[in-house]
C-alpha cells in the first residue's frame, strides 16, 4: 500500500502518506450517516432520535476564545451595521419591557373609575379623593387603605378618554417594537449572509491554492462538509443567535429593572425562585444529558449497522448471516429504545417541574401582591404588570442557555473552517515566470529526489532524458505508486531535490498554469463536468471552432458515437456522466487532448472496466494521439512497453529499475520477472 493514489488507477483506497486508518478522527464521516462522534442532528439520513434542541450535546471547539475572536474579526467590515442592529434591538426590547407597565396604568385608570363609581353611591358628588379617603378612615372602613392607593374620585366613573389614550399609546409602542424587531432581523440577515458569502469565497479561493497533498490526505467528504455544513451552521448562528442574544440579555436586564422598580420585595421573591428552578433543572438535565449522550451514541451505532448490512446485503445473505444481522439490529435497537426512553422521560420531567416552580412563584406574587393592594401600598395595575414580567422572565433565560450551547457547536464549525483556511498552500508561482510556448517536448529529469513522508525515501537521484517524440513507460505491479511520477511532472507535488526541465526550463520557473497547459493528460479516472459534449471536448481550449472540435472527436473515434446521441454534440452530460460508459468517457477525454494539442502527454493505459470493442477504439485513438508527441505512459500493454524509449520500473512506491526493454530483460531483475509473469505466459498460452 503505497503512493498517494489521488488519481491513480491502481489504489482504490485513498491511502496517502500520513493517513492511516482513522486519522480523520475529528472529522465526520462523509455522507449522510452520522456515526458516533460525528456531528449529529444537522445531517440527514438514518434514524434521528427526536430531541430537544438544547439537549443535543454540543461539539466543543478546542480554542473557544481564539475562534470567537477570529469570527468576530470576520464580522469587522459589518461593524456599523452590527451597532445599528444592537441599537434597534435595544429599542424594540425597551418596547416590550415597558408594555406591561403601561398596561398597568391602564388597569389603574379602570380601577379608579370603578371604585369612584362605588364611592359615588354613598358620598355626595364633588367630594375630592382626599376627602373620601379621610372619611373612610374616620369610619374605620377596611377599604380605606385600598382607596388611598388609587386615584379614585367619588362619583367619577371610568375615564374612557384617558384609558383610550393609554391603550392607543400601548398599541403604538408595540407597533414600534415590532417594526424595530423587523429592522434588526433584516439588517442582521444582510450582515450574516454577507459575512458567510465572504467566508465561502475565501474558502473557494483557498481550495484552488491548496496542494494536491491536502486532498490526498483529507477525505473528500470532510472538506465538503467544511465548505457546506459548517459554513451553513455559522450562517444560521450569526443570523439567529446574535440577534436573539442581544434581545434576550436586554430583556432580562430590562425586566429585572422594571420588577425592582415596581416592587423590590416581590422582585426579590421572584429572584429567589430562580436558583431553585435552575438547581432543579441542572439536577435533572445532568441525568438526562447522560442519557441523551447514550441515545446519540447508540443511534450512531445503529445507523452504522443499518448502513453496513444494507450496502453489504448480498454478502450478509450469501454467508447466511441474515438471522445474525437481524439479531444484532434488535439488540442495538433495544439499546436505543432504552436510552431514548430514559432520556425523554427524564427530560420530560423538566417542563412540568419548571411550570410548578413558576406557578408557586405566581401564587406567592398573587398573595403578597393582593395584600399590598389591599393595604394600598401597591396598585392593582402594578401587580398585573409584575405578574406579566415574572412570566416573561424565564423565556429569555432558557433562550440564552440554548444559545450558549449553540455557540459552542458554531465555534467548532468556525474552527474547522478556519483550520481549512490556515492549511499550508502550495508554493506560489515565481514572481517573474519564464514562459513556455510551442514547447518542443524535451523533458529532462535531473537528479530528482522525492518522498511523501520525510522518513521514507521514494525516489532518489532519478535521471532521465526524454527527447521530443520519445516515449517513457512506467510499469509496475498494482499499487506500486506509478502516479507519483505523474504528480511530480505536473507539479502536483514539489520535488525535494534535483530539477525537472521542459525544453531546458526548470518547471519551477514556469507558472503552474503554463506548465499544465503544456501537458495533456488522459487518465483512467476520466473527469467530465455537467455540460454539453461540445463544452467537454473544448475544455482544453476554449476558443476552438466547431470544425476543430469535430476533427478532434473524429481523431478520437468518438464522432460517430456522439452523432448517435439524441442531441449530438449538444447532448448534456450529467455531473457523474452516468449516461456514458467508461470507454466512451475515456474517448471523450482523448478528444479533449487532441483538441488541446499539447506537445507532451501523460497517458494511463489501464482500461479495466471497458468492454472489448470500445477498448480497441481507445487503444487506436491513444496510439494516434501519441504520434509525434513526447509521452509518459502508465503502461499496461506489451506493445507500448516494448517500443518505449525508456522504462521506469516501480515497486512499493520506488523506482527499482530503469532502462530500455532489452537492457532490462538482459538484467534478469524485477522487470524480467514482471514481464515474464505478465506477458510471456499469456502469449504462450494464447497461441
Amino acid at each position, binding site marked *: *500500500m503505497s503512493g498517494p*493514489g489521488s488519481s491513480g488507477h*491502481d*489504489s*482504490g*483506497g*485513498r*491511502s496517502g502518506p500520513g493517513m*492511516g*486508518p*482513522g486519522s480523520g478522527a475529528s472529522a465526520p*464521516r462523509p455522507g449522510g450517516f452520522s*456515526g458516533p462522534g460525528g456531528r449529529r442532528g444537522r445531517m440527514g439520513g438514518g434514524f434521528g432520535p427526536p430531541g430537544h434542541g438544547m439537549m443535543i450535546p454540543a461539539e466543543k471547539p478546542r480554542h473557544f476564545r481564539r475562534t470567537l475572536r477570529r469570527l468576530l474579526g470576520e464580522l469587522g467590515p459589518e461593524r456599523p451595521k452590527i451597532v445599528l442592529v444592537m441599537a434597534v434591538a435595544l429599542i424594540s426590547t425597551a418596547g416590550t419591557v415597558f408594555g406591561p407597565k403601561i398596561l398597568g396604568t391602564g*388597569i389603574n385608570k*379602570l*380601577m379608579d373609575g*370603578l371604585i369612584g363609581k362605588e364611592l359615588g353611591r354613598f358620598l355626595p358628588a364633588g367630594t375630592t379623593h382626599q376627602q373620601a379617603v379621610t372619611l373612610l378612615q374616620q369610619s374605620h372602613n377596611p377599604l380605606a387603605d385600598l382607596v388611598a392607593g388609587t386615584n379614585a374620585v367619588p362619583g367619577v366613573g371610568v375615564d374612557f378618554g384617558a384609558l383610550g389614550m393609554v391603550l392607543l399609546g400601548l398599541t403604538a409602542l408595540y407597533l414600534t417594537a415590532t417594526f424595530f424587531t423587523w429592522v434588526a432581523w433584516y439588517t442582521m440577515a444582510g450582515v450574516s449572509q454577507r459575512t458567510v458569502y465572504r467566508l465561502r469565497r475565501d474558502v473557494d479561493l483557498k481550495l484552488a491554492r491548496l496542494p494536491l497533498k491536502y486532498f490526498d490526505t483529507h477525505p473528500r467528504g470532510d472538506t465538503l462538509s467544511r465548505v457546506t455544513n459548517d459554513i451553513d451552521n455559522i450562517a444560521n448562528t450569526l443570523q439567529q443567535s446574535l440577534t436573539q442574544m442581544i434581545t434576550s440579555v436586554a430583556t432580562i436586564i430590562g425586566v429585572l429593572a422594571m420588577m425592582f422598580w415596581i416592587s423590590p420585595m416581590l422582585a426579590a421573591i421572584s429572584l429567589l425562585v430562580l436558583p431553585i428552578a435552575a438547581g432543579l433543572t441542572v439536577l435533572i438535565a445532568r441525568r438526562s444529558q447522560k442519557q441523551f449522550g447514550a441515545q446519540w451514541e447508540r443511534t450512531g451505532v445503529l445507523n*452504522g449497522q443499518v*448502513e*453496513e448490512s444494507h*450496502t*453489504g446485503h*448480498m*454478502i450478509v*445473505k*450469501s*454467508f*447466511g*448471516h441474515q438471522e445474525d444481522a437481524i439479531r444484532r439490529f434488535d439488540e442495538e435497537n433495544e439499546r436505543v429504545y432504552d436510552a431514548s426512553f430514559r432520556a425523554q422521560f427524564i427530560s420530560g420531567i423538566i417542563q412540568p417541574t419548571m411550570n410548578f416552580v413558576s406557578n408557586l412563584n405566581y401564587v406567592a406574587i398573587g398573595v403578597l401582591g393582593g395584600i399590598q393592594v389591599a393595604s394600598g401600598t401597591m396598585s*392593582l395595575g402594578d401587580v*398585573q404588570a409584575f*405578574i406579566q414580567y415574572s*412570566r416573561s422572565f424565564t423565556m429569555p433565560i432558557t433562550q440564552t442557555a440554548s444559545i450558549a450551547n449553540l455557540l459552542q457547536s458554531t465555534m467548532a464549525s468556525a474552527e474547522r473552517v478556519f483550520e481549512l483556511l490556515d492549511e499550508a498552500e502550495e508554493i506560489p508561482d515565481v514572481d517573474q515566470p519564464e514562459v513556455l510556448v510551442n514547447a518542443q517536448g524535451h523533458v529532462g529529469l535531473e537528479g530528482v529526489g522525492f518522498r511523501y513522508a520525510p522518513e521514507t525515501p521514494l525516489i532518489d537521484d532519478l535521471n532521465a532524458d526524454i527527447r521530443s517524440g520519445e516515449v517513457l513507460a512506467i510499469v509496475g*505491479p*498494482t*499499487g506500486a505508486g506509478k502516479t507519483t511520477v505523474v504528480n511530480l511532472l505536473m507539479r502536483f507535488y514539489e520535488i525535494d531535490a534535483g530539477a525537472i526541465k521542459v525544453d531546458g526550463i526548470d518547471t519551477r520557473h514556469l507558472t503552474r498554469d503554463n506548465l499544465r497547459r503544456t501537458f495533456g493528460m488522459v487518465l483512467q479516472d476520466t473527469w467530465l463536468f455537467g455540460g454539453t459534449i461540445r463544452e467537454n471536448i473544448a475544455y482544453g481550449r476554449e476558443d476552438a471552432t466547431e470544425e476543430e472540435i469535430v476533427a478532434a472527436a473524429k481523431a478520437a473515434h468518438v464522432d460517430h458515437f456522439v452523432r448517435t446521441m439524441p442531441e449530438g454534440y449538444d447532448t448534456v452530460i450529467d455531473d457523474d456522466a452516468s449516461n456514458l*460508459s467508461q470507454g466512451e468517457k475515456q474517448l471523450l477525454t482523448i478528444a479533449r487532448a487532441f483538441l488541446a494539442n499539447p506537445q507532451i502527454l501523460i497517458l494511463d493505459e489501464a482500461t*479495466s*472496466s*471497458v*468492454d*472489448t*470493442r470500445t*477498448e*480497441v477504439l481507445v*487503444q487506436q485513438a491513444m496510439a494516434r494521439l501519441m504520434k509525434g508527441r513526447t509521452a509518459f505512459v502508465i503502461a499496461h*500493454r*506489451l*506493445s507500448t512497453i516494448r517500443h518505449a524509449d525508456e522504462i521506469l520500473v516501480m515497486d512499493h512506491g520506488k523506482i527499482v529499475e530503469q532502462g530500455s526493454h532489452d537492457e532490462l530483460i538482459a538484467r534478469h531483475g524485477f522487470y524480467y*520477472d*514482471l514481464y515474464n*509473469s*505478465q*506477458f510471456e*505466459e*499469456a*502469449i504462450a*498460452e*494464447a*497461441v
Partner: protein
Amino acid sequence: MPIGNLAAFLQYVMLILFSVMMAALIFIMVPRAAAAAERIQQVLDTEATLCDPDEPAEISDPHGVVEFRDVEFRYPGAQDAVLCNISFTARPGQTTAVVGSTGSGKTTLVNLIPRFYDVTSGSVSIDGVDVRQMRQEDLWQLIGVVPQKAFLFSGTVASNLRYGDESATDEALWHALETAQATDFVTEMTDGLGGEIDQGGTNVSGGQRQRLAIARAIVKKPKVYVFDDSFSALDFKTDQQLRAALRKETHDATVIIVAQRVGTIMHADQIVVLDSGEIVGKGTHEQLMETCETYREIVYSQLSREEVA
C-alpha cells in the same frame, strides 16, 4: 365585571395564544410525519417475492453440480429479457468461466445461483435440486460468493474472515489469506489478523479488499465458488499466483468465474461466452478460438495479434 375576572381573563388569553401556537406547530409537523409514515409503510407493505418453499428439499451429500436449464430472466416490467436460453452445467473440480462484454448479463447470470433473483422460466439447480426448492439458508451454505464490489464489514480482518465460519481457527484464516495472496499486507498491518477494518473497508486498497473478500469465501469452504469479476483490481502477477493457489484449494469444488481479462479465464475447463444475454459459445479456450467469433474478438482486443501469434 369584577377586576379579578379581568386578571384571570388576561391569563386565559395568554394560555389560549400559547395553545394556538402549539397547535399551529403540530399542523406543520403532522403532514411531515404523515409523509414519512407513508414511505415507511411502503417498505413494510412490500411483499417478499423470494420465499422459502413449504416443504424444502434437502441435499444430503452435496457435490455442487450447478446446472442452468433453459434459463430466461427479465426484470419485472422490462420488455427484453436480460438472459435467455441459458443452458450449461458447472461441475465439481472444474472451473467454469463466463465472459462477455459489459452489459451482456454476466453478473445477472451468477446472481441467479444464490437466488438473489428468481428465474422467469427454466431452472437453476444444484445437484439436481432446483434452487427454489431449497431453504435459502441451506442454499447459501453451499455457495461462496465474491461479488464485483468487494465489501468488508467494520471490525477486524479476523472478524471479516470468520464471517463464513465463526469457528475457523487462526491457522485456517492464515491459510486462506495465503491462498488469496493477502498474507503480505495483513502481516504488515500493525495488528495482523486483529487489524482494524473501517466501515466499507475504506482503509485498505481496492485490490486488498478483493483479496480479503476472496479469503473470506475460502474460509467458508463452500461447494460452489462464485467469483464475479473478483480479480479486476489485481495486477496480472498477483492474479496469476492467486488463481494457481486457488486451484489447489478448490480442487473438489465447483468454481464459477466471471471476468473481463482473457488471462484470467483462459485455463478454465469450460468457458461460456455471453453476448446480449445469450450464449454464443461454450467450450475450452482452444475450441472457442476456432469456433467462436465473439470470443476471438475479445481475445484479440486484449492481446494484439502479434502477441497471440
